[in-house]
């Protein structure tokens, strides 16, 4: 049992220390960016399970995030019972409903492959968005506002980090287990995997459900940080952004996903200062160019399939 919680707790402690430093040293704007980076990291890690490890191309991640965001926001705003610590329940509730949606979508659509699956998931993401747009009980186009926020940066940071750590270790340990090797075998060669006794459809659905769960969690945290959500937040572009993070970080690299999530969140913001010098807004141009360069120089993503620890080890061995 000690082994079960040792690494996650240690990681959490390190993150908390960083959090306290951030709390003292940074302004509110950068703190918000930090929170977005953590949410993006959860999204990227969860999509990595489906796209990177199981090899299924999904473009509907924003849809699952929207479900989590709306469910948790709805309960937090309508029922005072869920104020304060109740957010844990609304977050988990949002995750579970997103997971259920993932199961509903996954069961029929995961029989498709590659481009076809991408189109189906893309369609699903749009269906969710349009459905939300037309549901008056959920605010329609006005969205939900007045979602209770966290009392302080440190609390919201700790909460988001806790979920990021859970997400990381759940997916990390899964992919290291026999189930994870099952996911990998689906990516590598579905026909061979079946011949070796792997129920590939079940594998894909499992990966999809777990991934949707964490997308829902990310959505729930997001809604409580921005305090306002509307259907226009969860567009197709958001899904694409998450795909970019996964590809940029390396398909099948957890630490790669995290690094890319931080990079993608920070880049457009850091480039803002450039506008003061040049006078015109070249932000997105440079951002796109940077992405193109990274993909040319590292076609398999920043880390490929290895983790940041592997890269570190390689570097140390070389210099030794």
């Amino acid at each position, binding site marked *: 049992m000690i082994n079960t919680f040792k690494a996650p707790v240690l990681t959490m402690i390190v993150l908390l220390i960083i959090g306290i430093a951030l709390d003292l040293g940074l302004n509110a704007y950068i703190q918000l960016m930090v929170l977005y980076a953590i949410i993006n990291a959860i999204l990227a890690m969860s999509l990595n399970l489906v796209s990177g490890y199981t090899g299924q191309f999904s473009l509907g991640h924003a849809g699952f995030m929207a479900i989590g965001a709306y469910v948790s926001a709805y309960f937090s705003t309508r029922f005072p019972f869920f104020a304060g610590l109740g957010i844990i329940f609304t977050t988990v509730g949002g995750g579970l409903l997103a997971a259920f949606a993932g199961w509903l979508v996954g069961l029929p659509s995961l029989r498709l492959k590659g481009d076809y699956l991408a189109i189906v998931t893309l369609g699903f993401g749009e269906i969710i968005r349009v459905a939300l747009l037309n549901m008056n009980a959920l605010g329609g186009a006005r969205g939900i506002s007045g979602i209770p926020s966290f009392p302080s940066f440190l609390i919201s940071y700790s909460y988001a980090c806790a979920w990021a750590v859970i997400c990381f270790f*759940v997916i990390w340990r899964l992919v290291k*287990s026999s189930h*994870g090797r099952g996911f990998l075998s689906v990516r590598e060669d579905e*026909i061979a995997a079946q*011949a070796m006794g792997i129920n590939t459809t079940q594998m894909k659905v*499992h990966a999809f459900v777990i991934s949707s769960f964490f997308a829902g969690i990310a959505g729930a945290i997001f809604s409580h940080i921005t305090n306002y959500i509307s259907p226009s937040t969860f567009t197709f572009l958001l899904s694409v952004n998450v795909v970019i993070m996964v590809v940029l970080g390396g398909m099948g690299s957890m630490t790669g996903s995290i690094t890319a999530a931080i990079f993608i969140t920070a880049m457009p913001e850091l480039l803002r200062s450039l506008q003061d010098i040049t006078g015109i807004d070249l932000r997105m141009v440079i951002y796109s160019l940077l992405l193109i360069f990274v993909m040319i120089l590292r076609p398999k993503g920043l880390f490929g399939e290895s983790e940041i620890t592997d890269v570190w080890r390689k570097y140390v061995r070389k210099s030794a």
Partner: protein
Amino acid sequence: MSANLLEVKNITMQFGGLKAVDSLSFSIPKGQLAGLIGPNGAGKTTVFNILTGVYQPTKGEILLNNENLVGKKTYQISDLGMTRTFQNIRLFKNLTVLENVLIATHQHISYGHLDSILLTNKYKKQETEMHNKAIELLKIFHLESKAHEKASSLPYGEQRKLEIVRAMATDPCLILLDEPAAGMNHSETHHLMETIAKIRQDFKLTILLIEHDMKLVMGICENITVLDHGVKIDEGPAKKIQISEKVIQAYLGVEA
């Protein structure tokens, strides 16, 4: 109850207007090393695909240990003890040799997702067992020193071998080998023959083999089924097949 491990009764496979396999029947008794030969395009690999559930036959019955396989999915058939190798190697190329073998043992584990997330004792125990079993199998084929190399980095002959190891890891009672000697030179083929004979003895396996290398087929197969245009034209031991008029005609054509 019959003593036959596999019994194929009148299977027909129709792709549109093409009958790839036409009312084919054959049976394999337990422990036999059977061969399936025929000229190119005779339908041999189609037969393998039907047996393993990749295709569902248009008509007919397939019994493994008296259990009907028609309608079952590939992974269920693998669970029942029939597994295969592929004509064009289908390893999990980007994974290590060890992982390739471990994946094939997945069907025997009973721990769930939660066990692996919480690192329970059940998880650890079964993982250790899987690893030990996989390493042991690799040792038989002298691949254990390459356990942590990528499967794609192995030389061709060893990739073929690894496919057999991987198939063995599913604990099969019947193993289908699709041209295991394709692309091998004489000494490699000879080595392969020995390996096949050895695993058959050590694991009490029944083997069905597709092969173009006649030396290999005639050398080790006890019973040979000859297929041409999806129809069985002859069957019997090597000596009978070698002098069979129909077989010679199928391979060499009819004298004008």
